[in-house]
């Protein structure tokens, strides 16, 4: 069944985000001959539009006003509503990002419909849209259909494949009307990301948990990451470790932290609670190092070492260095 799909895009430095590519991929598959549109808001939006056409968009709704560079949901909402007006979507796909989390419910409210959050599957089921999302901290999956239209869904990063780039594809750019007021005044921003490689981008993530026993435990975890390679491996943490102040919250992996999908995830002294696994279960290979052979993490891991991390990590670091 042909559907019109609108994607709320995000971009930086003129390039649509990876997630925007993924959303356009999902939109192309769902559209089945319907129109795929994308909104891009902020400085350089109309420049970024060109890259969305090979990725699956037919129309880009843009506004280059720098007011949009700092996300304020009330302002974005008005712009996206204008794009909805012009594209009559049956489905609206939004990233489960800082912006998407706040925008999607508001948009659903204004359109008198519903928003399904943090979906990992969006698919056609006999002509109707169905979405699936984790619930109960990742212990369950819940599949929903919509009794109202348009269907609004936020989609988890890395859960959808982009389409193979349609080289040379062109589309139409439509300028959205001017910017509205916002009731939110942004006073300032503080960056607290770790230096260097980010956990979302790293090929290997080594994470530490409460079982490290102290913030110093992270020195060994960092040494393990360094042995694998500074350009390859980044360090994450469980929420228990972050809440204890042992590691910056920006490095938290999980349901309420970051979702990572590296080739290799090494969980050190982490029990493997469902809420933690929600952020790393998409990793290609998981290794667990835990002194409790019954720890839940061993159910998700491919390889494991049962033992005290203080004893296991130093020889592991040496063995990895030697293997290089």
């Amino acid at each position: 069944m042909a559907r019109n799909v609108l994607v709320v895009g995000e971009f930086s430095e003129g390039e649509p985000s990876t997630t925007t590519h993924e959303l356009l991929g999902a939109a192309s598959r769902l559209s089945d001959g319907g129109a795929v549109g994308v909104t891009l808001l902020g400085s350089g939006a109309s420049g970024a539009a060109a890259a969305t056409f090979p990725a699956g968009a037919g129309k880009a709704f843009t506004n280059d006003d720098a007011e949009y560079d700092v996300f304020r949901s009330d302002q974005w909402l008005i712009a996206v509503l204008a794009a909805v007006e012009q594209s009559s979507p049956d489905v609206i796909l939004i990233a489960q990002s800082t912006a998407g989390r706040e925008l999607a419910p508001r948009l659903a409210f204004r359109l008198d419909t519903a928003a399904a959050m943090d979906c990992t599957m969006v698919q056609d089921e006999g002509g109707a849209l169905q979405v699936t999302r984790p619930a109960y901290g990742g212990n369950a999956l819940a599949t929903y259909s919509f009794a109202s239209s348009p269907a609004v869904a936020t989609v988890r990063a890395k859960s959808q494949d982009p389409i193979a780039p349609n080289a040379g594809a062109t589309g139409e750019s439509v300028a959205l009307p001017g910017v509205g007021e916002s009731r939110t005044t942004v006073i300032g921003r503080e960056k607290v990301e770790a230096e260097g490689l980010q956990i979302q981008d790293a090929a290997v993530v080594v994470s530490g948990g409460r079982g490290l026993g102290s913030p110093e435990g992270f020195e060994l975890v960092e040494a393990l990451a360094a042995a694998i390679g500074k350009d390859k491996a980044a360090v994450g943490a469980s929420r228990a470790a972050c809440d204890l102040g042992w590691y910056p919250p920006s490095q938290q992996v999980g349901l309420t932290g970051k979702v990572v999908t590296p080739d290799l995830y090494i969980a050190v002294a982490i029990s493997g609670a469902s809420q933690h696994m929600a952020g790393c279960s998409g990793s290609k290979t998981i290794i667990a190092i835990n002194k409790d052979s019954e720890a839940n993490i061993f159910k998700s891991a491919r390889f494991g070492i049962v033992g005290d991390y203080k004893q296991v990590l130093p020889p592991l670091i040496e063995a990895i260095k030697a293997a290089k």
Partner: protein
Amino acid sequence: MHLVVCAKQIPDPETPPSAFKIDPAKNEVIPAPGIALVLSQFDGIAAEAALRIKEAAGDTKITVISMGAESAQQAIKQVLAMGADEGVLLQDPAFDKGDPHTTAKVLTAAIKKLGDVDAVFCGRQAADWDWGVAGILIAEGLGWPVSIIAKGVTLEDGKVRVQRVIEDGYETVDLPLPAVVTVSNEFGEPRYPKLQQIMQAARKTVTTWKAADLGLDPGEVGAAGARLKLERLYVPEKEGKAEIMQGDTPAEQAQQLVAKLQAAKIL
């Protein structure tokens, strides 16, 4: 000032995955034996945020509202014991089996009925269904501004200042009152009530409101009003068991692991 805290009672989210079971015929979680119903973690933190504002501002009333079964009284009492002043239970069979939009409709109607509210505090997400939308929908329903996933909240000169968690750090924003704020664990731990406060809370009154008290039509709430239809609730399959390195010493185990990783071309 009048602050509202929205508090939900949920099955303990730290239930071990092995005890987590679903009834596929009913698409419902089967209550695990011995697993307690608790105040959703982030709602305790939302209450903490409201209490700190009350302590700083003085002359402030905090009302805690919860939509749920009779047992949700316990969640309300817990926030009363922390220091909130009044409780309202929103309980009606018509509210059952709704979606986050119908829940927000009920909570919004209750806040409107309370009348003179200056700010509403919610958790960043209910730790059972993990939606993270009710606070935003309440703001929309009231026509108020909203800021989500707060790690800091202060109130001054008719505005609320929120430090909100964003992808690469924090952002400080001001919203004019009245406003809605949703609070995250980065805010810090909620206080533990003292025994005396728990006893005092037992004596505080909890009012119950039903759909009719809120002027809500049973057709617009609960299952009847839901726009999201739960088709299937299930436990995802796990791959099974890890291959455990069997060496006698940590050094041997480490070497075996590296050999496995090399064989599998992972390292």
